[in-house]
Every structure is written in C-alpha cells, then in structure tokens.
C-alpha cells in the first residue's frame, strides 16, 4: 500500500509539470502582453517598459519559466493584477461560499438520483421507462441557462419564495436563506442526466449471472434490486461521484454568476473577463492538484470497498 501510494504521488509530478508548462506556454504564447494589461489604457511607453522590466518579461523564455517554477514551488502564487489581493488569500476567502452551495448539491443529487434510477430500472422496458427516457432526453436538450433563468424568475421574482440573489457573512443564514434556490435548481437540472446514468449502471448489473441465480432461488425482484444490484452498482456510482468531486472546488460558474454568490466560480470568471492571468494560472494548477489527489483517494477507497480490486 505504501509503495503504491509513493508511486502514485511520484507519477503526479510529470503531470503537474505538464500543467505548469501548458499554462505557462498558453499565456506566454497566445495571451496579450501582461505589461500592457497591467499598465492600463492610458499608460505611456515608459511605464509599460518599467513594468516589463519589473516582471522580468525581457528575460529569455526559459529564465521566465524558471522564475515561474520557483514561484510555484515556494507557494508564492502572486497577486491579482486587478485587485492586488494575494491569490492564496483569494482562494481562502472564496472557497467557503462555493462549498456552501456545492456540497448540498452533490449530496442531494446523489441521494435523489439513486432511488429515482432504481425505480426506473425496476420498470425497465415498460412504457413508463421509455416515456421517462424520452422526457430526460428532451429535458437535457434545453440549456441549463433556461432552467436557471426561468427558475429564478418564477420562484424568486414571481412567487417570492426565495430571495432573488444575495449572500451574507453567516453560514447558517446562507444555508437557510440564500443557498436553497440555487441548490434546488442545480439539483433539478442534474437529476435527468444522473438518473439516466445510474439507470444504465443498474441495467448493467441486472444482466449479470448472480441476478439470475438470485431469481432462481426465489428472491423477489425488490429484494434483488435492493440487496444485490444496488450494492454492486454502488461501485460505478461512487466512481461517478468521485469524478465530480473536484468540481465542488471549482464551483458551478453559472449558478454563482446568476445568484451573485461570492465563490470561486464567479472569481475565475471575473479573472477571465479582466485578463487577470495570475489568478487563472494559479486556479488551473490548484484544480489540477486537487483532481489528482481526489483520484488517488478514490482508487484507495475502491480497495476498501471492493476487495477484488488490485492496486497496481
């Protein structure tokens, strides 16, 4: 186990290096001149030159990459060009809002989609099943935007059940007042694809021999589904949850923009619109690192859940 962990962590190094290289080359090669962005529109040539000098932009490319690597290794992520706020500070202050919204979304959608999918799998092949499948196809073809626009309009503006948008400093108040509408909308939207996916997991399992055996020994369909199929289907379901785990640290961009939630998603979008390169670069690295760690933890969790899995 220890050897496995060490090897996996060692394997992360080239990938992380690749992400650093990609981000560096992308912004160096295609992005506009940082000095001109920083100096603003009314800057004189002298000011731009001074900033170039200060940022080390006149150095050869590989020296610049060396400086960049050194900053990353020493966890000096720089400051936002737009607000001069240290990037590390930016993450720490924006993360709680993102988690307040994303954790309930992930928990609720998983807990709701499993019984839904199980129910659909129970009536598989019937008219109800096919009707639900067609319905989810249509539901999926409507843009996520439409649901959020209409949902916000109907539930917050027309009916007044929730505030249209807003956020406060108190976690409890956020959870009770401001988070429910975004969470409900996001869960409602993701229910269609999740149900389809989990249904296919259940149907895969139903085709296996052990299900036939269970039927042969006279178990009812309900207990086959709940006791045998559900437990085996938990493995792909957990994989799917694990794959979406890094997403909760990124946040739902649209949800945060729509409801003015001061989370990471809105921050990164602001950074993109302001060409705030240090924030985007740091964010890319940060998510890449989190994704890799989560993937590793998932693989280890497999071993704990399913003894058949061999870590190699």
């Amino acid at each position: 186990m220890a050897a496995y962990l060490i090897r996996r962590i060692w394997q992360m190094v080239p990938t992380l290096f690749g992400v650093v290289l990609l981000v560096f080359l992308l912004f160096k090669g295609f992005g506009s001149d940082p000095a001109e962005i920083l100096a603003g529109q009314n800057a004189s040539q002298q000011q731009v030159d001074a900033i170039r000098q200060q940022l080390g932009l006149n150095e050869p490319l590989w020296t610049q990459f060396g400086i960049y690597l050194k900053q990353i290794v020493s966890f000096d992520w720089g400051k936002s060009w737009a607000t001069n706020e240290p990037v590390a500070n930016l993450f720490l202050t924006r993360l709680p809002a993102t988690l307040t919204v994303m954790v309930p979304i992930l928990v609720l959608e998983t807990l709701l989609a499993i019984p839904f999918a199980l129910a659909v799998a129970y009536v598989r092949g019937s008219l109800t099943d096919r009707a639900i499948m067609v319905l989810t196809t249509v539901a999926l073809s409507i843009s996520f935007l439409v649901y959020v626009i209409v949902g916000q309009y109907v539930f917050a503006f027309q009916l007044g059940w929730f505030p249209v948008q807003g956020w406060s400093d108190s976690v409890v108040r956020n959870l009770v007042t401001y988070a429910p509408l975004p969470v409900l909308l996001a869960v409602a939207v993701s229910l269609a694809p999740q149900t389809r996916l989990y249904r296919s997991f259940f149907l895969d399992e139903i085709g296996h021999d052990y299900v036939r055996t269970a039927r042969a020994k006279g178990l009812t369909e309900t207990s086959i589904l709940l006791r045998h199929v559900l437990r085996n289907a938990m493995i792909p379901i957990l994989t799917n949850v694990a794959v979406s785990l890094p997403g909760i640290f990124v946040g739902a961009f649209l949800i945060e923009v729509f409801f003015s939630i001061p989370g990471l998603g809105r921050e990164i979008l602001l950074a993109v619109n302001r060409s705030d390169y240090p924030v985007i670069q740091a964010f890319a690295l940060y998510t890449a690192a989190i994704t890799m760690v989560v993937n590793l933890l998932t693989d280890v969790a497999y071993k704990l859940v399913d003894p058949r899995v061999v870590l190699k």
Partner: protein
Amino acid sequence: MSAVLSPSPGGTAAGRSEGVWVAAARRFRGDRVGMVSLAIVAAFLVLVLAAGLGVVAADWQVERGVPDAPPTFVGPKPAQQAVTVAAPEGPNADISAIDPLAPRYTEWAEAAKKYQTTEAARAQTLPFGADRFGRDVLAKAVKGAQVSILVGVSAAIVATLIGTVLGALGGFFGGRLGDLLEWVYNVFTAMPGILLIFAFAAVFGRGIGSVVLILGLAGWTGIYRLVRAEFIKHASRDYVRSAEAIGASAAARMFRHILPNVSHVVLVQLSIHVVGFIKSEVILSYLGLGVGVDQVSWGTMLAEAQSELILGHWWQLAAATAFMAVFVTAFSLMTDALRDALDPKLRGAE
C-alpha cells in the same frame, strides 16, 4: 426489429455480403425515431445553409417592429397613457441674443435638408415578437441557429480530427510517442473541462473562430482515448499484419486499413460532441466569452432574454429555447439511432 430479419437487398453482386455501411444504413432506415430525427436535423441544416447564403434571416439586424413588440397571437401592447406635461404659460423668452449657437441654426437646417430620412413603419406585432430594439425574434433565432450549429459542428470536427490523429499515432506506434501522448492526455484531463475552456477563452478572445478553437482544443481527450484503444486492438490483427507483409507503409496501415474499421466509433463520437459543444457555445456566449457582440447565437439570445423576462417579455426566451430544444433533441435521438445502426452490439445500452 423487423429490419434485422429482412433479407439483404440487392444481391446483384452474386453471393457478395453487404458492406458494413450498407448494413448500417439498412438498420438505420428501419429505425423510425432515427429517421424522423434525421429529417428534422436535415431541415435544420438546410436552414443553416440558407441563412449562411443570406437567403433567409439576412436582415435580422433590421428593426422591423416596435421595441419589444409582442408575438402576433398575443396582440399588440396596450397603448401607454401619454404623460402630459402642463404647457408653459406666457410668451417664449427670446434668448437668441445670448444663445451662442443661434447664428448657425439656419446653416444646420440647410445641411439637414440634404439628407432624406424616412421613418420606416414599424409593426406593432411580429409572428414571434421582437427584442428590445424591435428586431424580429424569428429571424434572430434562425440566424442564431446558423451560428450555434456551425460552431458546434466545426468544433466537433476539430476535436475529432485532433483526437483521431493523436489516438491513431499513440495507439499504433506506442512506445515513446505513445507515452508522450499519454502525458499530454493526462495534462489536459488534469483539470475540469470547463476550467480548461475558460483558460483558453482568456487568451483567445471572442469570435466564432475562437470559440471553435477553444472547444476543439479542450474537448478532444475523450475521442483520443477511444480511438487509441481501438488502434491498439486493431494494430495486431491479421489483416493489418497482412498489409504490412505486402509492404504497406505505417501511414497506409493506419489510415487506409485501420481507420475505416474504426470509423464508426469516430462518427458516433463526432455526433455526440456536436450536441455537447452546442450547449457549451450557448453557455460561453451567455457569459460573454463566446461569439462577438455583432453576432447572434442562441446563447446571446438567452443572455438578452434574462433581463427581458423581468419585464414580462418572454418571447425571445421561448424562441431560443424552442429552437435549441428541437434541434438538440433531434440530434441526440439521431446519434442514438446512428450508434445502434453502426454498432448493433450496443443496442439499448446507454
């Protein structure tokens, strides 16, 4: 399916079994849902072509109705009560002595006469309503369909090309090159897709070409993975080794021998990605990272619709949603039918 049981048609080439594409086409024709979706998609493509050639919706920027003109079946807006301002009493004061512009008024009046302005008659209602400038929503939705579908299809082609070529190279040669490509794949999949799209969007700016490039560059990884696995599987098959034995070059084996045998995988992936990219384009354009400000797409329509909805003007939202829902549903169902036809083993699976 009765189609599966029907004897193979033709039979002119004595005893020759039908090819994989002929068989797939026959299976596809037997799928009624697939055929209907294909017809709808084809109709949309004709619309896109017509809009591209300027036959329809070329004048989407013309302000034909009154601002926010409702759809015809709703009826015109109730006339607003004019706010009356009490007319001032007493004679007008003559300020021409101190008005610095007074000497030039006649000169300007002369100049203004040279230009003919005609106040175009504006319709009170339009079939699908109008946006806040009075532009026809129907024409916008058609033009938006052109942009959104064009971006979705082009981006899917870019992603498929990158994914197929890299997957073919990685799967066929393996070794150092394969490792290098796997490393690139790992780097691109190391962060959530939407973040990669944003990072590209930050440097490439906006416009149709940029969006195609952004989505294509961020979305090739899934296709690469599948094509690579197929090429690994096929590279050691007998027919490929036979081709090698008679002196076929590596390129010929990869693209003339193996590629046709995995092209059904590529085709299905292409059409799955079209749907995904259309949705992504809509979201990018909504966020202001998509098509340019002088263009219209379903995403920019939705962005405008958000503020219109609060005023009770729901028609632009409805038009964009309806167009997109019909096209994407038809395209998804067509993709499902295509996959079933090309790979009967997968029938019924998700």
